[in-house]
């Protein structure tokens, strides 16, 4: 039977995949997708906990509101982030991380 830990481990694996992608990939768009994946993994954790935390016979909807907010913020973030990527592409003609090394000390 499926336990809470199953969901947590799936979430952790998804998060780890996202992290690996962020570190390993050079394409900023894909890094962005990986970030979205990590955010969703966090959402999964939250939803799993709400389901297993039954109050008055119902899942914890207060925590599900948090997931709702997370998704909203993520949507806003994607919009702004993609605008930045477009601006970056126009400036550098590239979306590779090698193109942005201005912070080099």
């Amino acid at each position, binding site marked *: 039977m499926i336990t809470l830990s199953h969901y947590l481990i799936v979430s952790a694996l998804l998060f780890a995949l996202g992290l690996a992608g962020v570190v390993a990939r050079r394409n900023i768009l894909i890094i962005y997708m990986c970030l979205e994946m990590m955010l969703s993994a966090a959402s999964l954790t939250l939803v799993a906990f709400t389901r297993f935390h039954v109050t008055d016979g119902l899942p914890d909807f207060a925590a599900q509101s948090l997931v709702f907010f997370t998704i909203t913020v993520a949507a806003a973030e994607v919009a702004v982030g993609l605008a930045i990527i477009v601006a970056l592409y126009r400036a550098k003609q590239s979306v590779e991380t090698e193109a*942005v090394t*201005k912070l*080099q*000390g």
Partner: protein
Amino acid sequence: MPAQETSHATLPTLLLLLPFFTALAILLGHRLLKGAAVMLSLFSAAACFLISMMMLGSNTTGDVVPLLPFIEIGKFRFAIDALIDQQCRGMMFIVTSIGLLVHVFSLGYMKQDAGKVRFFGALSLFMFSMTGIVLAGNLVMMFVFWELVGLSSYLLIGHWFEKASAADASKKAFLTNRIGDFGFMIGILMLFAANHGNVSLAGADGLREALTSGTLHDIAQTQGTYMTMAVLCLFMGAVGKSAQFPLHVWLPDAMEGPTPVSALIHAATMVAAGVYMLVRVAFLIEAAPVAAQTIAWIGGITALMAALMATQQNDIKRVLAYSTLSQLGYMVMAVGLVAMQHAGAHHEAVPGHPGMFHLYTHAFFKAMLFLGAGAVIYSCHHEQDMWKMGGLMKHMPVTFITFAIGTASLMGVPFITSGFWSKEAILGVAFEVKGGSPLFWIGVATTMLTAFYMTRLFVVAFLGKPRTESAHHATEAPVVMLLPLLVLAGLTLISAVPGFARLLEAMTPHHAEEHMTVMIASILALVIGAGGGFYLYKGKDKDPLNIRLFANKFYWDEIYAVLVKVFQDTLAWIVAGLDRLLVDGIFSRLPAFLAGRIGSAARSLQGGHLQAYTFLLGLGAVLVIYLVVFVLPAAGH
């Protein structure tokens, strides 16, 4: 009685605050006020004049009136207070009346100037600082305002700061004054130490009281050198501010400022502040005979030397500047001589100091001469070389007449001019004082030279034929500029009339007796000087005399340049060596080397690679999880 004290304090407080707030308002709101700022400044000057007239009527004795407590640290107290006596009231009249007239004159003179508002703001600041000096009831307050006049003088000399020479002149004036001011400060501190922190000019525990019966009395009796040093240090302040030898070099250069400023600050009031200060502390000078002699001699040397220099100057304002130097030397000499005369015996405050008398007559006629020169310069399209003028008598009759009155007064034309009486008074003292005869002859020689160079200036600029186009087309100055000239001409003529002088109090010398020798000597000197000048320069287009030494001002500027260079270079060499060894080496290079090494080590972390950063971020997160979840619970936290 508190009520009476308040009424005593009202007028001086107003005198201080009016120009202060005017200057502040112009400083803060000059964009907003624009033309109104000029009127505001003029109004404040007029109000100050009225107040000083009201003060003339009041009959306060020489008490210190507290106006505002300023600093109080433990026992040490420093207040803004006013010592209102005859000297103060008379000086205040001079400052405010000439101040007002110069404000009026400037309305015309500075009409087209872009920095007009700034000019009037600085003028108000000057009025504030000058009234502060005149009122000052203690030396610390006087020093504060002393510095403030230095500042406003700096601002006004450098009014046309786009011109390199003006900017340089203002710096020169400021720096030269710093030397004198430093001495002044040391002098104040010496008295401060000797009299337990009280440097009030009058009142209980004040300096005068202390000198009669208190701490200073003992010091004056037993440690004459200390007293002499203190007085000479105070005198250094006057040397700087009144441009006495050897710090005289700044005053001629200060003529780079607008002419009304030259009239007000560098002829009538600020430069006279040194003399005023010396008269204020005259009782101290009397207690130090050596210092008194030094002062008299410095004054005499300045008077003679400046008169010699004036004979070879071609710039109309510079001639007047050197004449101012010379006349200031006269006043300082008078201060020294009077102190020598009174030495040993304790006198009450001298009501009629010849130095002050000359200061007062000189203020009027010299301000008028400068304003007249200003009118001439204005009419000749800012031409200052007198050899390019000539024949101005016909074109500018009013200016000509007033200038003639001023010249006569400066030369000391007998009986009808005020300058004659005040000069006679000084020469009289020199004649009377034991050991004063060399100074007497110096004074006579100066009189002769004064007559010579003023005749030269007058003949060259006003008589004869116009030498250039601009002189040919010169027209009379506008009424707003002529009005102050006429008022000053009137004041010049009547200021030595005993009745009028008494009305202004303080200024007439107390001894009226005249020595025949003195009078004959000075009249002879005048005739020789003026006659020689007239004979030599009548109808000439070029200077028949050519004395390099005088024209180049005895090479003082060059001597200072060399002195400063030698000292400065040596000092700079030593300092640079220390700097290289200590600062550059141990304090700067070593830490820089270490910081650089650490930096380049840390730099490798900052590769600018996004992936490296995210990797480190992830590593940090993993490490935190490891520590918080696995290490801390195991350690029992």
